[in-house]
């Protein structure tokens, strides 16, 4: 199994840490992972994205131009990455912040209204975990118990008390995700 994912959105949306937790969970179940962010001052207030690869084999290129899954959190990112999804692949987006719907017909498209839901529930801090939950519902590439372990590893000890909240968000996300166009 090799899953190649791009996660993209605004700087403050937790894009990088979502990728990090996913990657750490992969590590927990003994898979190969890579996490390759965009970096630099253009991140300041701008867009951020991260390529995450989880695989049973040694990972070759950490930098890709085609992905199995694209998780998209703003319009700029949709514009940039819609065409980078492999035919038959998966695109997940949060409609908040999207002004133009994705148009591809050869891929599976899901939407997840996590931003609104998180705001409503006062869980904005773990909005990204909702999105991750949605993704994992569709592609359970890592086991929930490993996500927990991943959270433990990637959060500093003083934040471990937040793990239950994160797990809750994961569950909510699984319910929230909706098909838009399924092959």
């Amino acid at each position: 199994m090799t899953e190649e994912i791009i996660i993209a959105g605004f700087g403050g949306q937790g894009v990088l840490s979502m990728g990090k937790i996913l990657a750490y969970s992969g590590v927990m179940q003994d898979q190969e992972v890579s996490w390759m962010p965009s970096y630099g001052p253009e991140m300041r207030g701008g867009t951020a994205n991260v390529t995450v690869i989880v695989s049973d084999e040694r990972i070759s290129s950490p930098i890709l131009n085609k992905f199995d899954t694209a998780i998209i959190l703003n319009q700029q990112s949709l514009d940039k990455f819609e065409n980078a999804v492999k035919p038959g692949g998966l695109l997940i987006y949060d409609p908040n912040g999207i002004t133009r719907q994705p148009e591809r017909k050869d891929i599976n498209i899901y939407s997840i209204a996590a931003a609104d839901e998180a705001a409503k529930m006062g869980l904005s801090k773990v909005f990204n975990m909702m999105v991750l939950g949605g993704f994992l519902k569709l592609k359970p590439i890592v086991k929930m118990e490993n996500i927990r372990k991943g959270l433990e590893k990637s959060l500093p000890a003083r934040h471990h008390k937040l793990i239950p909240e994160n797990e809750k968000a994961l569950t909510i996300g699984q319910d929230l995700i909706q098909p838009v166009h399924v092959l």
Partner: protein
Amino acid sequence: MGELRLMKGNEAIAEAAIRVGCDGYFGYPITPQSEVMEYLMAEKPYETTGMVVLQAESEVAAINMLYGGAGTGKMVMTSSSSPGISLMQEGISYLAGTQLPALIVNIVRGGPGLGTIQPSQADYFQAVKGGGHGDYYTIVYAPASVQEMADFVKLGFDAAFHYRTPVLILSDGAIGQMMEKVYLPDPIPRRTEEEVISQCPWASTGKPPTREHHIMTSLDLDPAGQERLNLLLQEKYRVIEEKEVLYEKIDCDDAEYVFVAFGLSARICQKAVHLAREQGIKVGLFRPITLFPFPKKPLQELGKKVKGMLVVEMNAGQMIEDVILSVGFQIPIKHYGRFGGIIPTPDEVFRMLKEKIIGG
């Protein structure tokens, strides 16, 4: 026992340095490698292992701090990125001339000048041919993964002390910034003062009455003496070329065409090898791990078996000169490069292999 972690390349270097018993890190911030010092400052090894971590006033100061530390037998390192490494060239030449062990990490970004902060491999020539003055080489390791970023710290220090020579890790912004799984070995305690003194009997550590005073210098006003030093250096480089070559061959056994690439480019080419094999084209990858010493002989052997080589670099064509010097002109050897911070994709390099080498 060791430990498994998910880390950035830059962090892995820092953590590996602590674990290998490094005595001192001296550096100056520059993107995309500032995490090395930031990680060290956050970990505070000065409170645990006793490792010194100091933010210098400049890269020039940092490399000369290295010179001081190395001259006293301590295990010292710095890291920077391209413009900062250029400022260190005088110091590196001094380290080489004085035969001092030290580890220098270059997380390359796009140049020339201020350039970009995106990854690049355009400092190959500087690293391999000697960016400083005089006849010298540094051993150059080119990691292609976060694991190697960690591993090569130990490899680098071992070689540096074995040969009494500065060692360079030539990586790039992408490997510095990306996270991968990395296995970290158990920490090795820092050497005691007594151990430093006995393991580095040449160093200036304080002159006991029982020996002559030690002098660490690269100066010899007498050209005959200076030539002797140079001959000694050349002999050392010959031994290094004989003994320290590292490389990796992937799918080369039956390959008709090969990519030659180092570091990040090699990983991209590895993916391209898969793409090619999927299409039934017999492609392999030759990855020099040491850039100096360059794997001349294995590459030459490979040159006798394949029909062509595509050298892929994130630069305008630098390592290709060493490839040609190794392989000769019997088979087509072409270059494909992207620059200024652009990373080629696996598709792209595969297409280029077809266009430039396989034909059609």
